[in-house]
């Protein structure tokens, strides 16, 4: 035993607090004195629709033949006051992603995909690209505080309007478009100097509060002859109060954007720490709309982290009339989630203005997005039919159960294997 025993060294690969990412964050701040901005939104794990399951129809009700019977997917949004509601073939819409954040080819491909599947695209900030309008099936036009490239003509070109109050990935802030994406063309469209780092106007110069929103919506109704729907987009925070106010303003519906929603660029601290996730936000929004007695007329659209048809089915069951997707559509076009959207160096030609990089966008981008939306809709149909529904919109709360105590407490949907909710019940018992 004289021989010295070699004691193996233990190296701690990952410290619980001072992780590699945390250390990198600190070093970034130590060098720049600035908070970090990046694309894609939060990367933390949030409670999501995987925490719910759908109850299949067995003896208590009959399931519907998945492959041979029909299931209605057509969706009509905004009929509260608009005489021409937004009619789309599937309850999956494409979210507002700005021309500027995205390159022209990516924008055009998204627009073409809506023509293939019969849904809507939303222009996002920075004006309405003619190529987008020419190729879109239904065009939602955003009204943002910056009003970049916005005019009476934008309203006249719209099938629906969306007034931005907030964005899930960066509530309290709006567009962050950094200099390497502000080319001559983007600068001209937005009326700003070329190459600057742009931090857009965060609030509307003509809407300083909810009472003024009432008058603004009246003004827009007058302009649109009460024809097209007007939605408000809000970041999920005080959802109950905000949705009730949205109902009161006279809008036709609300888009609730959860805190895990994607973005082209946002302060990391904002994406990570502001707002609540899509799932609890949806529950609160539905409750608020029911409390106001407008469930049948006021449209609820949710976005933020919607990935597949199961998410869609569960969102509809919880009270949404439709969902909107951003990041998912980009991934269908080839996005590898490198989180460099803000730098304009997108290796797959989506989030960039560089002509050479833009050429890298896959040729069949439009078809791929259309395929993705088609397959998502198929999945939602499979779930709805197994639950015994002949319409996607017939999915209801009674059809779902919570997989975890957390989801149960958060949503008021009973825990699997029990008939109990451990919180405010959400339409049960």
């Amino acid at each position: 035993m004289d021989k010295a025993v070699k004691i193996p060294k233990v190296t701690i690969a990952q410290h619980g607090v001072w992780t590699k990412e945390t250390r990198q964050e600190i070093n970034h701040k130590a060098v720049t004195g600035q908070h970090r901005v990046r694309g894609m939104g939060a990367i933390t794990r949030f409670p999501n629709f995987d925490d719910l399951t759908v109850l299949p129809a067995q003896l208590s009700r009959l399931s519907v033949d998945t492959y041979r019977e029909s299931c209605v997917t057509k969706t009509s949004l905004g009929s509260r006051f608009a005489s021409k509601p937004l009619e789309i073939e599937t309850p999956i819409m494409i979210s507002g992603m700005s021309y500027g954040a995205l390159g022209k080819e990516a924008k055009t491909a998204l627009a073409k995909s809506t023509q293939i599947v019969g849904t809507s695209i939303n222009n996002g900030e920075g004006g309405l690209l003619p190529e987008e309008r020419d190729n879109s099936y239904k065009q939602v036009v955003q009204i943002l505080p910056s009003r970049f490239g916005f005019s009476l003509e934008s309203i006249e070109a719209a099938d629906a309007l969306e007034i931005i109050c907030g964005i899930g990935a960066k509530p309290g802030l709006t567009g962050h478009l950094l200099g390497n994406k502000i080319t001559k063309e983007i600068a001209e469209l937005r009326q700003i100097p070329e190459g600057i780092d742009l931090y857009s106007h965060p609030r509307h110069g003509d809407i300083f509060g909810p009472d003024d929103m009432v008058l603004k919506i009246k003004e827009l109704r007058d302009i649109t002859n009460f024809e097209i729907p007007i939605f408000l987009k809000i970041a999920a925070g005080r959802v109950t109060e905000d949705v009730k106010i949205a109902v009161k303003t006279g809008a036709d519906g609300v888009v609730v954007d959860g805190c895990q929603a994607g973005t082209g660029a946002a302060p990391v601290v904002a994406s990570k720490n502001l707002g609540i996730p899509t799932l609890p936000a949806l529950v609160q929004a539905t409750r608020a709309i029911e409390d106001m007695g407008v469930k049948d007329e006021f449209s609820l659209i949710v976005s933020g982290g919607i990935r597949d048809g199961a998410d869609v089915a569960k969102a509809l069951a919880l009270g949404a009339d439709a969902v909107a997707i951003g990041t998912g559509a980009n991934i269908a076009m080839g996005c590898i989630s490198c989180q460099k959207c803000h730098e304009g160096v997108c290796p797959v030609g989506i989030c960039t203005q560089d002509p050479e990089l833009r050429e890298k966008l896959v040729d069949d981008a439009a078809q791929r997005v259309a395929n993705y939306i088609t397959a998502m809709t198929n999945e939602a149909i499979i779930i709805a039919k197994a639950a015994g529904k002949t319409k996607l919109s017939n999915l209801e709360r009674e059809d779902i159960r919570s997989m975890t105590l957390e989801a149960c407490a958060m949503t008021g949907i009973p825990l699997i294997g029990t008939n109990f909710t451990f919180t405010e019940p959400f339409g049960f018992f």
Partner: protein
Amino acid sequence: MESLTITDQTSVEVNQMLRRLIKEHDELRIENPHSIHNLGTALKGKCKVTINGSTGYFTGGFLAGPTLEILGNTGWYTGDNMSDGEIIVHKSTGSNCAPSMMGGTLLVRGNSGSRLGFGMKGGDLIVCGDAGRWAGYMTLGGRIIILGKMGPVIGESMYKGVIHTVDPDVESKIGNNVRVVNITESEKQAVTALFEKYQIDHPVDQFKSVIPLESGRHKYTLFNPTHRQSSDANVNLHHKI
């Protein structure tokens, strides 16, 4: 001249009537406007509409051609998003006039509230009296001319456009990311032409111009410790909207 009296019509009904009448008349007159909101929204074509009294919020929003002459006061957001035509307010206007204005002229013979020309993109905004705080916030274009005193934080983070002012304290009232220069000869000519057109009797030589930084690149300071600043530190950093 065709004359309308507003009794219990809604703004939408009045505007629909105006849109119809504008096609047939060169001049219209509205009696008893009752300070109605949203009057004259998105009117197109050429016509002079005289409003005998005061109007409420959002007067002449999205105006695209006609002249609106309001013989009284107007509320907040006068001329929001207007693209062409004229709005002439004989008395004063509320806050946030000409937000996101794109073109045309908004002339206020009296005073204006705060945040005039918020995010303005084009056109001319002239205020003959005083103006409140945060004028010309983040403008993308256009010309703002103020003949009276101005509140603090002038031109905060303008991208493009110009604010002409005779306020002697302009240097100490400007916001961040802008600078003060003398009015140029070509600007003087343009302002003189505007003043002649609207019969405004005011010399143009003493105007200073608040304009964006030459680089166009803004700097923002979120945390601004003051304990080590000398007494002549930049006071503009302390203003709140």
